[in-house]
């Protein structure tokens, strides 16, 4: 009898844990295109039974969840806090979670956001520790503090040193540009393209036909020929050869109207090599207002068939990928369409490679 009572009590006590497990499992298994949504909706009622003590567990589950699962978790935490009150947030555990780089950056950022809402003073006290943070959005907070502090300095030399220090830590384009602008005002010129690691030396070949925007999907020989960089190819108006093209633009912009002239309904290819010191996960950061495709070591990374919807921006597309140790081949296809308005003249792109925290990577060669 005693044994059964004990078992019953055990089941009652452990029930919420098992509920949580089902919920957490459903969050982790959430997939694209709505898969797992129905199961998660079924499990969601267990959130009602949770308390703020469960919040740290949610952040740990965030480490395993995708971006959609992260948003479900944010919703759960909002519901729990609303029920329990912001004061009930287990602050020490959350601070510990934020400080632990083993946790995913996006999870740590979410934990920081909830901490900021509940106890802004405590959250602010963490910001100076973020200047080397691997999570770009947290690092940004730390860098902004450095920039603000630099702006408050009246002594010119101290301000230069402070801005240079902030620049060394900055990874976001706007913060880098801001620090460079302030330094320029103080008489210090910074090579922005070098600072951000843009690839400025390329081989280009073209033009190839892009009538009716069809060239985007036509695999011209430079993209499907082995060792194509050492060969001539048949272009729109006859044989074409690779030529060296470089840029001195402050943001590494390659203006393709320069080598090929202001022509329409054409496309070209740009090729560069990147010597990596190791196998590594990286981010390929491309900006272009033209349609483009990007291959790394013959693998298509992404393709974007859109023209002149806004300006070319640095880091417009940030694409996760890998570099091999040694030589890596980078091939970019950049297309120009038929539009004739003044804002459609540009045929251009910029490109750089960073690590996952946004720190520039430079080729060894």
């Amino acid at each position, binding site marked *: 009898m005693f044994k059964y009572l004990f078992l019953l009590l055990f089941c009652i006590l452990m029930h919420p844990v098992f509920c949580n497990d089902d919920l957490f499992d459903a969050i982790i298994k959430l997939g694209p295109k*709505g898969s797992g949504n129905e199961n998660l*909706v079924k499990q969601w009622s267990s959130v009602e039974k949770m308390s703020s003590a469960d919040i740290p567990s949610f952040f740990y589950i965030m480490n395993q969840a995708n971006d959609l699962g992260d948003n479900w978790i944010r*919703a759960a935490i909002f519901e729990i806090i609303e029920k329990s009150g912001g004061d009930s947030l287990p602050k020490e555990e959350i601070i510990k979670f934020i400080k632990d780089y083993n946790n995913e950056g996006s999870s740590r950022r979410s934990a920081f956001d909830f901490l900021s809402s509940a106890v802004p003073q405590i959250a602010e006290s963490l910001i100076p520790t973020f200047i080397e943070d691997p999570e770009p959005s947290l690092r940004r907070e730390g860098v902004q503090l450095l920039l603000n502090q630099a702006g408050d300095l009246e002594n010119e030399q101290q301000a230069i040193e402070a801005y240079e220090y902030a620049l060394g830590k900055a990874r976001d384009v706007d913060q880098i540009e801001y620090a460079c602008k302030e330094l320029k005002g103080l008489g210090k010129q910074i090579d922005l393209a070098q600072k951000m690691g843009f690839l400025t030396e390329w081989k280009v070949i073209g033009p190839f036909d892009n009538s009716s925007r069809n060239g985007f999907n036509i695999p011209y020989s430079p993209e499907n020929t082995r060792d194509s960089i050492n060969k001539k190819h048949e272009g729109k108006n006859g044989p074409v050869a690779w030529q060296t093209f470089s840029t001195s633009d402050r943001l590494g912009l390659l203006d393709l109207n320069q080598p090929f002239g202001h022509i329409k309904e054409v496309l070209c290819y740009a090729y560069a090599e990147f010597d990596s010191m190791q196998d590594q996960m990286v981010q390929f950061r491309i900006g272009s207002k033209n349609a483009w495709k990007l291959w790394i070591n013959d693998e298509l990374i992404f393709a974007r068939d*859109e023209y002149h919807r806004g300006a070319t921006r640095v880091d417009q597309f940030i694409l996760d990928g890998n570099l091999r140790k040694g030589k890596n081949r980078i091939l970019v296809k950049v297309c120009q369409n038929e539009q004739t308005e003044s804002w459609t003249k540009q045929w251009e792109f910029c490109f750089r490679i960073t690590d996952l925290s946004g720190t520039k990577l430079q080729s060894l060669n």
Partner: protein
Amino acid sequence: MNADWRGFRGTEGNGLSKGEIPATLSQTSKDSWKVPLPGRGLSSPIVVGDLVFVTASSGSQQSNLHVLAYETVNGNKVWERIFRATGRTICHNKTCVAASTMVSDGNVVVAQFSSNDIFCLDLKGNLIWLRGLTFDYPNIANGLGMSSSPVVAQGVLVSQVENDADSFTFGLNLKNGTTLWKKDRPRGANWTSPIVLKNKSFEWVGLQSKEGISFLKPVNGEFMWQYKDGASTIPSSAISFENKTLLVPSNGLTALRTPEYGQNPEQLWRNNKLAPGTGSPAISGNQVFVINRANVLTSASIKTGEINWRLRIKGPISGSPIVTSNLLFIFSEEGLCQIIDIKEESEAKVIKEIDLKDTILCTPAADKGSIFVRSDRTLWKLSKKNNL
């Protein structure tokens, strides 16, 4: 009568407030209020019961997506949810990630953002489901930003996500967010919103694009009829109050007789002098109202397309007008609310201006004689003095 305002240009999607709104609206009346917003937005507020809902986006990349609920009576914030964008957040500077207007069926609210993240919540802020459509299809994005506002029909959320690259419209189950159907759509940037055509025997959803407008069954996505003579990709269509006439921003403005089941639409008239600018047409009584790119407000007969009157108003104007049986309300980008007497079909005049001194790009919402409007920083309720 239900006084809610449950979507872009109201529950009926034509800018018409069934209840009257007085011309004596004032920022300083005792029932008026304003509250700060936590982020940017040009989505319209919507009203369900005693709550007004609105979206906002914040952060250096506008990747924080806010859904907010306030009490209509006093502007007290009831709840706020902040999610993170899973799709692209780059937009033209004039617009932002919180551009699409929310929609409600009276039980839940749905918020869609330019990142193509969609959140369905109950009226208390509890998440019912979410989707990340660009997470699912990485090439559904527009470099200038998205702004189409979804609609709900027969328990289906219809979301147009149409671009130069991948271009789709989705029918999502309002209960759990699963995809009921997905349609390939004409490739081309499209900022228009779907409209719902409803009568006793059917409920269809119209999808406008550069090719025209197509109506489909919301439950299965089956196309019922199409008008293929082209249409604008910015201002959306409107349906007359009786659901008999569809007004499409096509070759100026084109009026179609809405067909019965199994029939094709019939063109009633076309007037190339009635092309709307950015804002969509509004309808009141026998009049359709359009504002062109030169800030000229024009009234025309819904039956014939003949122009009744023209009135130059102060612009530039991005939002759409809303109307009652005798007044039209429009906000300029510079924050000037112009209240126009439209009860005479022969002439109109501006009878009052209210200067909010802020950039207003949205279409206002109306509820119980008050107007709700927002900027990047503020949500206002404008009521008349001694509002009951």
